[in-house]
C-alpha cells in the first residue's frame, strides 16, 4: 500500500520533490522586511513589486513564549507556544518541543532550530496527512 505524500501545514512550508522541506519568506528588496506568504507590496516601506523569494533560516532564538494549559476541546495540553526570531531575519510562531513545559526550564533568547514532522496525526476531511514544523532546543 503506497502512502501519499504529506501536504504542507501552511503555504510557506515548502516540500520539494527531491530535497528537504524548508520555510519560504518574501523579502522586500528596498527595506529588507521579511514576510511569511506571498505578497506584492511592502507594508513597512510601501514599495511595490520589489519582493524576492527567500529560504528562511532553520535556526533562531526564542523571543517569547507562553505555556498553554487550556486550549480548545481535543487539543492536547500542555504545550509551549513559542515566538522565534530566525537568524537572518523573520519571526515565526510554533510549538517548542523536546523541552519541559516549565518556565524554570525555558530561557529567553535560547537558541532553537526548526525540525519537520507529521502534524500530530491530524488529517483533513479527505484523509490527507500533513507535514508541520516545530522548534526544539539547538
Amino acid at each position, binding site marked *: 500500500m503506497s502512502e501519499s505524500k504529506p*501536504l504542507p*501545514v*501552511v503555504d510557506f512550508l515548502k516540500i520539494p520533490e527531491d530535497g528537504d522541506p524548508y520555510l519560504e519568506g518574501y523579502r522586500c528588496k528596498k527595506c529588507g*522586511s521579511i*514576510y*511569511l506568504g506571498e505578497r506584492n507590496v511592502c*507594508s*513597512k516601506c510601501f514599495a511595490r513589486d520589489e519582493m524576492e523569494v527567500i529560504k528562511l533560516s532553520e535556526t533562531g532564538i526564542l*523571543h*517569547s*513564549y*507562553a*505555556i*498553554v*494549559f*487550556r*486550549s*480548545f476541546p481535543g*487539543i*492536547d*495540553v500542555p*504545550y509551549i*507556544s*513559542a*515566538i522565534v*526570531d530566525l537568524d537572518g531575519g523573520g*519571526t*515565526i*510562531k*510554533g*510549538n517548542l518541543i523536546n523541552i519541559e513545559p516549565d*518556565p524554570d526550564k525555558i530561557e*529567553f*533568547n535560547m537558541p532553537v532550530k526548526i525540525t519537520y514532522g507529521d*502534524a*500530530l496525526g*491530524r*488529517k*483533513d476531511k479527505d484523509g490527507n496527512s*500533513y507535514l*508541520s*514544523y516545530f522548534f526544539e532546543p539547538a
Partner: protein
Amino acid sequence: MSDVYVMGVDMIKFGRFPDRSVPNIGAEAALMALDDAGLGIQDMQALYCGNLGQANAMVGQRILQEIGQTGMPVVNVANACATGATAFREAWMSIKAGMYDVVLAVGVEQMGKGLLGGAGGGDGIPKEGLLGSGTMPCVFAEAGMEHAKEYGTTFEQFAKISVKNHHHSTMNPKAMYQIETPLDEVMNAEMISYPNTKLMCSVNVDGSAAAVLVSEKKAKELGMSRAVKVRASAMASDPYTDRDLVMPDVNACTRLAAKDAYEQAGIGPEDVNLVELHDCFATAEMLHYENLGLCNDGEAGRMIDEGHVELGGKVPVNVSGGLLSKGHPLGATGIANIYEVCTHLRGEAGKRQVEGAKIGMTHVIGLGTACGIHILEKTN
C-alpha cells in the same frame, strides 16, 4: 469646531442574559443614557451602534425598533474590542464635523462562555496546538512574557493586577463579580496560559453601555452641571513592526493613539487622575502602564508593587474592576469605560470614587489591531 460633551451616559449591570436578544440588551442602556441626559429618542439626530457578534445584522436599527423608529441615520460599527470606542468616536466626529448637535452611541454584546481566538481557520487541518496557540489568553501571555524578558517582570506581579481589579470591583455594583481574590488564590487558580491563570483572564459577559453626545451649544442649552467634556478622541491601527505577522502588537498601536490623545488634549500623563484601560488579561494591563506613559518603560512592575495604580494611589487604574472582574462584553466595553470615567468626574462613583478627579482616560485595544483612547474632563 465645537467642543463635544457627554450629556448622558450609563451601562447596565453586566451579567449573562441568554434569553434576551442583542438589540434588547442594547436598548436598555440606550434608554438609561437618554434618561441620564434628560432627553428622548426623538431628540437624537443619529445613532452609532457598536456590536461585534452580529456585525452584519443591523443591531442599531433593531435597537430603534425597540425604543423608537424616528428615521434617523444609523451606522453600525465593528472594530474588535475597540468597537464601542469606535462607535463613540464616530458620534464625536459627527458633532466635530458640525453635522449634528445631539447623537447617541450604543455598545452592546452577548457573549458565549469559554476561550476566544484560536488559530483554527483556513483550509487543511486545525493549527491550534500545532503551530503554537491563537487563543487570547496565550496571545496576551506571549506579549506579557516579552515584558518579562525585557524587565524581569514576574508571575506574581502580573497576578497582583488581578488582585487589585477584583478588589476594586467589590465597590462596583454594576460589575459582574464583587469578590475579593487574594494573591494566593489568583496564583493558584487554574493555569490557562502561563502566566495567565483563570482569574487573570477577563470575564465573558453580556452587557451594554450608551452615551448621549452633544455640541457645546446644546450642552449650554441643557445645562452643564453634569456634562463631561471630551478633550480627546484618538484612534490608531497597528503600525508596521518586525514581529507583527505572528505577534499582534498591542504596544505600538497604543503608544501612537496615546501620543495623539495627549496632544489633542494639550496635557501629559501626569495630569490624568484615573484610567480605565484594556485589561483583557492581567499581562495586558502591565504593558499599558508604560504604553500610556503612566510610568517610564521598565517601571510597570513597580507601579503595581508600590500601589500607584490602586484606588487612593497616584493614578488609579480600572477602579471599575476592569475587564477582569467587571466583565468584557466586547462591543460594549469601550463605552462602559467612558461611563466609569464620567461617573468619577461627576463625583457619583460612591465607595470607589477617585477623590477630586478632574481628568480621566479610557483605552481599549482590539486585536487586528485597533486602539481607541478618550480623554474626558469634568466641566465644573
